[in-house]
């Protein structure tokens, strides 16, 4: 269930940066998470799809790179299609 909170916070961050870099569409979002944070890829993807429906993030792929700690939760980078379509 905590994935819903994380997904909401990721949405706010990605929304801000997508606007800044004039993204037409967000293709993929890469997160880094400590194994101890309990964030689960499938559950996160589930909530992300609900939040992203009807937005430029719809259909975006989520990838979580797990590292061995208890606290890291980071939006590392994203792959975008910009206004030019590239």
């Amino acid at each position: 269930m905590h994935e819903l909170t994380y997904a909401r916070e990721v949405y706010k961050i990605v929304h801000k940066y997508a606007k800044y870099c004039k993204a037409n569409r967000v293709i993929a979002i890469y997160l880094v998470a400590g194994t101890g944070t309990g964030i689960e890829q499938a559950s996160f993807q589930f909530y992300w799809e609900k939040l992203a429906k009807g937005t430029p993030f719809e259909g975006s792929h989520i990838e979580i790179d797990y590292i061995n700690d208890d606290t890291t939760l980071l939006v590392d980078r994203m792959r975008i299609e910009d206004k030019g379509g590239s």
Partner: protein
Amino acid sequence: MKQFVINQPILDELTKKGIAIRQVFDAHKIFSVNIMASPGAGKTSVILRTIESFKNIYNIAVIEGDVIELDVERVRNLGVPVVLAHTGGSCHLDSIMMEQALKQLNLEDIDIIIVENVGNLICPANFYLGTHRNIVIASVPEGDDKPCKYPGMFKGADIVLLNKCDYLDHEAFELEYFEKGIRQLQENIRILPLSAKTGEGFDKWIAWLTNSYDRYIKSFTIDTS
């Protein structure tokens, strides 16, 4: 397609809200504790007994992280201000829920705020609420392996209370193994066995809380010597 580096902590905004809450606490000289444990460890029972010990000495208020008012009613029956921080079924309290709950309290008349987090040994540890101390409660019937299974929670604790210690003679609970699990994470942390039911060990917990409160209040005194 382009790649765009972000490198931003996911909980940045919530953490900033937590810092703002801490500033509100400090502006009102309110000492605050965040009580975390698994469901059934005895968070509410410990809080109720703590209130009984303190209510004629300090003005206490309680924030209950929950979806129903059952525990709120239990606290209200003791005559102290209490509000529900509605979690919407979430597995943790966050600083937005705290912010909403604090709006319902009269902060001018409070010395100590006790926050009862959601029963869970993983998620609450990841969300900074702005409170001054993290209190983790474990209990004997849960088993002695909790520190090994949930290191994130015990690593962030300022004190660990081992509740239901009156069951120590009846359960296969190795106190030494339990303590070792915690000491591997924090060598010098205080571990207090107690029982909210019988009151055993409560004097030490109350003394710890009193000392923590006194030190907090003294920290506002400017040394002019």
